[in-house]
């Protein structure tokens, strides 16, 4: 038995094609990229553009942090500051978080993981990237041409009647980008239902696929609602159609209901795929089947379902009725349980595993810690009595950054490192990457932990000045110092990953000795993914930590460093197959 435990069971899996054509070098023309239907190339297109947007959003974040070190700022006017934090929120939410894991990793991996040649609708998939780019261009256009200062939440009547900035164009951009989400969601659902390889039953699906499937459901149920809502703002803003604004006869609180009906589930669009990545990383680096596979799969669906019933917890103090608040609070406490189950199950997976502390695993372990804090601090906000004090403060900012950055971004980085050899066919320098993963964890905590304290003290969010409350300053200085470390830890992977494209060592088909169909094909995979469609006969995450440990011992006896021995073995097994 080799390091690829699937070998004996998976029949007719293609070996590396002799001709080294893969999806990357099949055709070098620009046209072949821009008109591609290949889900892997579309994933790469997304990776490049989304990374660019992440860079822009991070610059905005940096500006905010530096401005807040002084109680009265020193670089920006209040108007500019408001535009900067709005830009940060809009870019990070609509052009990074919602897209990052589903559209980059999801697009690239879903067909590979279920043994399909492509998505169910390849052209729709390409369309989704173009819609994303048109939407992104509109948003960028609006931000350059006057900016937008309504925050990413676009609360009315400020956004519809009072903001003097370029709200309409940015909303149009988000509206268009929404369709990009919807097409991706449809593709995920149909592909999972119809394109699974023979033998890939529902309960043999990797948990990443379950997570992407649940994400697809949330996307297609939620996104149309926010699309209509944003369109309503545009109508009110441009044609003075009375919908939300009280002075026109509308209801501003109605907007909040509609907006959060999407935007709370949108949190799950961001975090569910991260759960998926996390399950893959934990299973493959603990070398053990995920503990409670079924419970994790169902908890993804439970979160997707319950996630639609808790939007009102964003509105406890916004004049919704007291009884509404009580019901929404109760359901919010319930939705915390599936997330708690996941954390416990990941921890339990480590028990009796054969744990390898490689870069993706360090991100995954960091994720457990950060997501635990992020999730538990959510209880403070779902709890009615404490929410009254903590909502709209930096406590909430810290909470959702623990979930969104500590959760989603950490998982994205972990996943990117894990699948990087598969996507590019190259290895990155392991030791730098490992230390950088630790740096992300430290920088992140330094940045956002002080914000819990300053939030509890009452510092409202979206404040430019706080000269009237100088007691907040030490925490802002700490946070800014942390954000410098965090920024550094985002720049370093950008450099070494880019460098690895040309200088990195060539990756074998399965450099991690991981389990999963995506590792059964060459790195990078051929355009058609598999030369022959695989037939799946074994269970998911079919690791055997005991045997593996014995093999390690045997290898140690031969005085071969364990990491190399594994590499060697996987290469050997490749040869055997040929």
């Amino acid at each position, binding site marked *: 038995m080799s390091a690829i435990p699937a070998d004996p069971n998976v029949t007719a899996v293609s070996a590396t094609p002799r001709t080294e054509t893969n999806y990357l070098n099949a055709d070098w023309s620009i046209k072949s990229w821009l008109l591609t239907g290949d889900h892997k190339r579309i994933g790469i297109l997304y990776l490049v553009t989304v990374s660019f947007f992440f860079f822009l959003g991070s610059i905005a974040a940096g500006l905010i942090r530096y401005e807040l070190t002084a109680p009265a700022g020193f670089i920006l006017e209040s108007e500019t500051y408001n535009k900067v934090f709005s830009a940060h929120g809009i870019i990070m939410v609509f052009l990074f978080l919602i897209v990052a894991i589903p559209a980059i990793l999801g697009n690239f991996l879903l067909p590979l993981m279920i043994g399909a040649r492509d998505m169910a609708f390849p052209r729709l998939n390409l369309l989704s990237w173009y819609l994303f780019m048109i939407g992104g261009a509109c948003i960028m256009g609006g931000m350059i041409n006057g900016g937008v200062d309504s925050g990413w939440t676009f609360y009315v009547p400020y956004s519809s009647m009072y903001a003097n900035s370029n709200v309409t164009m940015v909303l149009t951009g988000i509206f268009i980008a929404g369709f990009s989400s919807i097409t991706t969601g449809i593709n995920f659902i149909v592909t999972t239902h119809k394109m699974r390889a023979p033998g890939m039953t529902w309960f043999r699906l990797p948990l990443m696929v379950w997570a992407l499937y649940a994400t697809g459901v949330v996307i297609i149920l939620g996104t149309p609602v926010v699309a209509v809502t944003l369109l309503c703002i545009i109508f009110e803003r441009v044609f003075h159609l009375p919908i939300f604004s009280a002075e026109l006869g509308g209801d501003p609180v109605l907007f909040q209901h509609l907006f959060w009906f999407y935007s709370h589930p949108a949190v799950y669009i961001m975090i569910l795929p991260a759960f998926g990545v996390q399950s893959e990383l934990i299973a493959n680096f603990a070398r053990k089947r995920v503990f409670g596979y079924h419970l994790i799969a169902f908890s993804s669906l439970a979160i997707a379902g319950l996630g639609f019933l808790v939007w009102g917890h964003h509105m406890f103090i916004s004049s919704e009725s007291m009884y509404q608040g009580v019901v929404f609070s109760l359901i919010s406490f319930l939705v915390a349980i599936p997330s708690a189950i996941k954390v416990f199950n990941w921890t339990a997976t480590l028990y009796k595993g054969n744990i390898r502390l490689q870069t993706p695993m360090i991100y995954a372990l960091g994720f457990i810690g950060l997501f635990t804090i992020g999730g538990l601090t959510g209880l403070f906000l779902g709890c009615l009595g404490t929410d009254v004090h903590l909502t709209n403060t930096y406590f909430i900012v810290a909470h959702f950054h623990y979930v969104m950055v500590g959760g989603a971004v950490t998982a994205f980085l972990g996943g990117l490192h894990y699948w990087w050899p598969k996507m590019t066919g190259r290895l990155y320098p392991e030791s730098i990457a490992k230390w950088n993963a630790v740096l992300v964890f430290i920088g992140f905590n330094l940045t956002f932990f002080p914000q819990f304290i300053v939030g509890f003290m009452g510092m409202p969010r979206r404040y430019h000045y706080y*000269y009237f409350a100088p007691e907040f300053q030490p925490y802002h200085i700490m946070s800014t110092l942390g954000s410098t470390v965090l920024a550094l830890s985002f720049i370093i992977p950008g450099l070494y990953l880019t460098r690895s494209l040309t200088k990195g060592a060539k990756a074998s088909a399965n450099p991690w000795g991981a389990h999963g169909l995506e590792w059964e094909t060459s790195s990078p995979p051929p355009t058609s993914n598999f030369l022959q469609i695989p037939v799946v006969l074994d269970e998911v995450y079919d690791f055997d930590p005991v045997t593996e440990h014995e093999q390690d011992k045997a290898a140690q006896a031969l005085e071969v460093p364990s990491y190399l021995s594994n590499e060697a073995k996987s290469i050997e097994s490749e040869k055997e197959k040929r």
Partner: protein
Amino acid sequence: MFSNFPATPPQASSFSREHDLIFYALLALTIIFTVMVGIGVIYFVIKYKRGSDADRSRPIYEDARLETAWSVIPLILALIMFYFGTKLFITMRVPPADAQEIFVIGKQWMWHVQHSNGVRENNTLHVPAGKPFKLTMISQDVIHAFYIPAFRAQMHVVPGRYTTMWFTPTQPGKYHLFCSMYCGTQHSEMGGTVVVMEPREWANWIENGGQSQATLTLEQSGERLYKQLACNNCHGAEDNMRAPSLYGIWGKKRTLTGGRSVIADQSYLRESILRPHNKITNGYSNTMPVYDGQINEEDVLKLMAYIKVIGSSVGGPSSSGTDTAAAVLNGTKGTMSPFAANAIQYQNSSMRRVDSTPTTRSGELAVNAIAAQQEAKGN
């Protein structure tokens, strides 16, 4: 550098304690679970790290009892926290019947507060300790939120509908008042101070129309100023060696040195207060100091109002004229018609608003505010 390094907001309302108890209970839960998960992760990683000789036989992949346990225990804890949170929330939402009502209007970018007896204030809220207050709030433009961290009280202020919040302040002191719902350019500067006073102090304050001391009419403050500046040392009830008396001067013809004459009207009085050397009354020498640049226009108006009163009286303090003056100066509330009283109060309150710019956070330059603060600290 940071001698003042608090990590918690002050507790100043009846909700604060209960809120903080729930907060710390949740915090304890968070710490316990995070430490549990953290220790679990670190322990397993060390024990089952690749190459370690730990026992890996008979691994478990699913265990209904274990999974039920860690679904049900958090669920029970969550429901307990839900119960206490909801209980506090319902208390926060249902004001007691005896709560006194205060009206709050939010607009870009200031808070306007109206007490039930008509006293108004901007960007400040004065309340006594120990008495429940119910705030009925509405916005004039966009959505704001009225947030007093020390009271653990926060509520949106929405255009087109009234929202309410209530609290019982407990601890006298000054606390932050914030707008916590993003409302546009100067959002961060829409706020001010909540002043919690001792009940008696507050009763005084509200009785005096929003001032810690009784409000003075223009004439009364003029009289006070007249004495403060020691005008009465020279300008007494009767002419003396140093200066002419100002009694009965109003509207009369004055003869100056050099033979010119002038009517004692407002512009003459103003000039003679600020630059007395320009027009010296016949028979006197130039001894009065120059007040130009020493007192402001408001003070001149006050002095003028007082001089008008004594200037309209006929003669010295013994004459009947001064009695009228005394009546004007002393007898206010009893004799005046309600309309006149209101007019004076309105005038005072509008004067006061000029006075009270420091409490108006918006419109004031941040840099100036900081300078003022540092100055205050230095002192």
